[in-house]
């Protein structure tokens, strides 16, 4: 595929899917299995699932549910949430998850990034960086569903992670999450310029133009939630994905 990837990013809460605004107010979207099936038929490039409660509830990934998801999912699948050690990584690999998205554990246990990359290859290790602007306008890395500040600078952190062996950086803007107002292009640009591995932009996409903007700012792929699950001013839940020819036309 020549054009940059466009990735629906879906949030798991318990057994269901939700969509948040600025990492808060999760709105229920339904059964993940059927939504995966709809995305299959829409020939989506790739899918990412993030369990937003696993780490804060201090539990492992919901392997049972993930098994059901992977058995239904025809496209490459990334998963993040509650991955703590190599046991988790091995188990996820065995049920067909292709990419591991590490967030809190990358901050708290950087050695895991190296281990996972050695075991499964760098291309399988994605570092998710949740970024919020502080009161003074500086970018800061947050973990644990955006609740815990780390004091880290996202650009420096991304560079460190690349050195550790990460194969992809997933930059998610907490301030833009669910707003559908467009990505934080400045943030994407800074991270993309600092690393050589692919950067996936997330947080704020509302239409296909936004996706193209992220790529122009340096992202290799554009991820989004709201724009693929809501329709119209009332945010009615409806799964959608841009048509292939539309993406080809718009994406740089």
């Amino acid at each position, binding site marked *: 595929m020549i054009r940059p990837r466009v990735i629906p990013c879906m949030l798991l809460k318990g*057994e*269901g899917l939700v969509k948040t605004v600025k990492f808060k107010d999760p709105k*229920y*979207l*339904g*059964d993940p*299995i*059927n939504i995966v*099936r*709809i995305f*299959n*038929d*829409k020939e989506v490039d790739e899918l990412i699932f993030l369990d937003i409660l696993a780490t804060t509830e201090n539990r492992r990934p919901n392997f049972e549910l993930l098994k*059901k998801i992977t058995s239904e999912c025809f496209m490459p699948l990334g998963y993040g949430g509650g991955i703590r050690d190599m046991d988790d990584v091995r188990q996820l690999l065995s049920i067909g998850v292709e990419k591991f998205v590490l967030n809190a554990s990358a901050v708290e246990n950087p050695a895991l990034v190296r281990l996972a990359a050695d075991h499964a290859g760098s291309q399988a290790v994605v570092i998710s960086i949740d970024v919020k602007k502080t009161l003074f306008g500086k970018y800061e890395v947050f973990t644990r569903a955006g609740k815990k500040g780390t004091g880290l600078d996202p650009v420096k952190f991304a560079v460190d992670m690349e050195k550790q062996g990460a194969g992809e950086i997933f930059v998610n803007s907490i301030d833009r999450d669910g707003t559908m107002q467009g990505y934080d292009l400045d943030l994407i640009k800074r991270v993309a310029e600092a690393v050589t591995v692919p950067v996936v932009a997330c947080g704020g996409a509302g239409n296909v133009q936004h996706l193209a903007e992220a790529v122009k700012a340096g992202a290799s792929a554009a991820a989004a939630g709201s724009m693929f699950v809501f*329709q*119209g*001013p*009332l945010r*009615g*839940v*409806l*799964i*959608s994905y841009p048509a292939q020819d539309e993406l080809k036309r718009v994406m740089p």
Partner: protein
Amino acid sequence: MTSEYRICTRCIMDTTDPDIVFDENGVCNHCHDHDRLMKQKVVTGKAGEEYLQKLVEQMKRDGRGKPYDCLIGVSGGVDSTYVAFLVKKMGLRPLAVHMDNGWDSELAVKNIEETLKRLGIDLHTEVLDWEEFKSLQVAFLKSSTPDSEIPSDHAIWAVLGDLADKLKVKYIVSGFNVRTETHLPRAWSQGHFDWKYIRSVNQLFGRGKLKTFPHIGFFTYYRRLLTHRRVDILNYIDFNKAEAMKILEQELGWRYYGGKHYESIYTRFYQGYILPVKFGYDKRRSHLSSLICSGETTRPAALSELDKPTYQPSMQEEDREYVVKKLGLTDDEFESILNASKKTFWDYPSYGRIIEGPALKFLYNIGRNWYRARQKRAHQAEA
């Protein structure tokens, strides 16, 4: 119920409906119902146009100062999409309401997306809690009645009613129409508005109480008959399904999904597999019968249509695997559901059983006897 096989001479309804009755010419009760309802409810041509024009003006007047004039349910299917097209053409401000019960096909959501975008209609979606709804669907399968689609049918009307109350919108425009939907035997599915029925099946076979399931209580149902108004708009135009589909394809980029109500995976599987396999009847029979009576198809054409499989057997197998997995059943469990002895609506507690049951009949008889006795006394006193 007769044990002998018989089929209507006009349509193709037969004794797979246990309550079917034939007149001296061999024409069934459903055909008579069709003719009666066509006279009572369907207005076509100039008269229909005028009636609808007046109604639309009234709806616009009543909608003043409110965000919407009317609600429409959307499923991605022909009828509901055509309703969206019509109300918009008449200058109404509709709100589209979709109930997502976890079984939408890609085609269904794509149809809704395209239609509403092109027509500029807002969408409200009510997503049923899947874990709860799953348990309810399994409960209905285990109850062994042919009414497994009742929870969905009930919930969409509950959602529409709740939203109409909340937004103070009076009109609910539906895609129900006499021409194509009159030949449905009661024994094939009943209890659509019977919350007690749904609750008791859930109590007997489900896991835990229904906490979030949208429903219509006994009195709410009757209150809404007074405060809301349902408009079956397709009864006031010269509705022809084939032509409607052509218009939708051309103007809205809508795509057909190959069978009545097949836009939902569960409905497709339920009507195309479970009903024929377990209960021995084919809903296409009733749908085609309606089409015969409204002149959209002929009896021989309908009969040969019925000889075809309900839908592609390979797809049936695929659906079966998916349904079993999604409902959290095992193959053995599903097999035993298919083989369990058949039950009906009347085997479970319901409002219907109270209203039509022996207790009320007993009271009714007492009342009648008392009335007759009084008449008799009055008569004797006169004499």
